[in-house]
């Protein structure tokens, strides 16, 4: 039985250059999953960038030591496909009846195709947005779930002029992404433009009703003597029947260790 709550997927990830993989996402997550690190697949840094994975595996030198960055090919010269990588991992989860599971990406740069157990989902563009996919119907309960993510670089990675400059040729500004990656007065250009699964990946298990994005606001009166906490939430009933709910909010102050004052 799966416990209600979130599990972070930050271990056991593998990565491979898309140009070196002839299998499709469906094949990778059904009949031909990678078995572990080999000549094609390497241990991946998730969360982190493509370049972080390449540095970890000593495919390229560390760009922040000496002139290491000069030895790494820039995306403008290599082409976007050079920094387009497959990421792969597995996870297990046994749901009860009426439990639901979401696969969550807190940020990907810049777009991605997600495959889970042979099912495909496109993650749209944008470096600073969360993605949450309900994967309840495609989850496997009796064996590991196979997850592959093909991550594409920004659409406009730009080219770094010989003289450098603030934000290179400024092409990166056409996308919704970090702009420092074309170089600035304080940093050399980042060769992969920070492509990657750069923030937390998780699965979250809920019952029929899910809490989304609570909003807490306080208001103050009488020189901070009278204070009110205002709370708004979104609720999603994922089930096909009316849900009779008991919604509870509790504000506690930790007194000592695990003892709380309510």
């Amino acid at each position, binding site marked *: 039985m799966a416990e*209600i*709550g979130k599990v972070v997927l930050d271990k056991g990830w593998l990565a491979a250059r898309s140009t070196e993989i002839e299998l499709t996402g469906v094949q990778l997550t059904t009949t031909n999953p990678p078995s572990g690190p080999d000549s094609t697949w390497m241990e991946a*840094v998730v969360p*982190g*960038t493509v370049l*972080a994975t390449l540095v970890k595996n000593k495919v390229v030198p560390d*760009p*922040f030591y000496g002139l290491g960055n000069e030895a790494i090919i820039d995306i403008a010269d290599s082409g976007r496909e050079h920094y387009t990588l497959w990421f792969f991992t597995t996870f297990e989860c046994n749901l009860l009846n009426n439990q639901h599971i979401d696969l969550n990406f807190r940020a990907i740069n810049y777009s991605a195709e997600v495959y889970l157990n042979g099912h495909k989902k496109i993650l749209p563009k944008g*470096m*600073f*947005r969360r993605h949450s996919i309900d994967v309840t119907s495609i989850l496997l309960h009796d064996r590991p779930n196979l997850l592959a993510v093909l991550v594409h670089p920004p659409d406009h990675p730009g080219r770094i002029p010989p003289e450098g400059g*603030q*934000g290179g040729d*400024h092409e990166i*500004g*056409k996308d919704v992404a*970090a*702009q*420092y990656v074309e170089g*600035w007065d*304080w940093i050399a250009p980042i060769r992969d433009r920070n492509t990657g699964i*750069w*923030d937390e990946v998780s699965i979250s298990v*809920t*019952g*029929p*009703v*899910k*809490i989304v*994005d*609570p*909003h807490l*606001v*306080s*208001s*103050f009166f009488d020189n*901070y*003597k009278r*204070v*009110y*906490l*205002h*709370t*708004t*939430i979104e*609720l999603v*009933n*994922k089930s*096909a029947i*009316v*849900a*009779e*709910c*008991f*919604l*509870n*909010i*509790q*504000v*506690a102050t930790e007194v000592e260790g695990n003892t709380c004052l309510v």
Partner: protein
Amino acid sequence: EHLQTQNLSLPAGAHVHYTFSEIFFYKPKLWWPNGMGKQYLYNVEITIEVRGFGESDLWSQPFGFRKIENHIDSATGGRLFKVNGEPIFIRGGNWILSDGLLRLSKKRYQADIKFHADMNFNMIRCWGGGLAERPDFYHYCDMYGILVWQEFWITGDVDGRGDPISNPDGPLDHDLFLLCARDTIKLLRNHPSLALWVGGNEQVPPEDVNSALKTYLKLHPYFENLNSD
């Protein structure tokens, strides 16, 4: 009095907004920036149980009671801040990101932000050419009393200056920019350290983006009325 339970009936497949009745506190311990007092944090926990199923979901977050105000001083042109009614002298650090390859661990954030607090800083400005910082960054700013000035992803150098002028209308897809902005606001809005949103670095975003951001971040009229009380 700091515990509230409501019964709700949610139709099948419904996606609804729900507002709790306000919860009253008498003289709560306030959250103060580094150097002005303690960073007092309450734990807010929301749970939902469904009849016939049991616990369905839960959410919790440390929350600090604080009121941050700021305005441009007409005499100096500088921006003045008050926290909980007290003027604060801002000692700030400029921040891009914790690691150029975005290996953003909790441990690294804690070390970096504690270092800023140890330097007697009370504000970090997250530059518009870098990241909207992550929840772990904000968590440690909450803990160490560092106010955060968070900019959106517009810079003068890449958006609007130069010869020829670079990206004068900002990113190509304004709707995508605004979608990312809305989502980022929702991700970070409950952190007491979050002090100020700024459209970009040394540049005003395109008019439609700027006015939409102002609308998203406007105080709800309900709170305008309450605060004028």
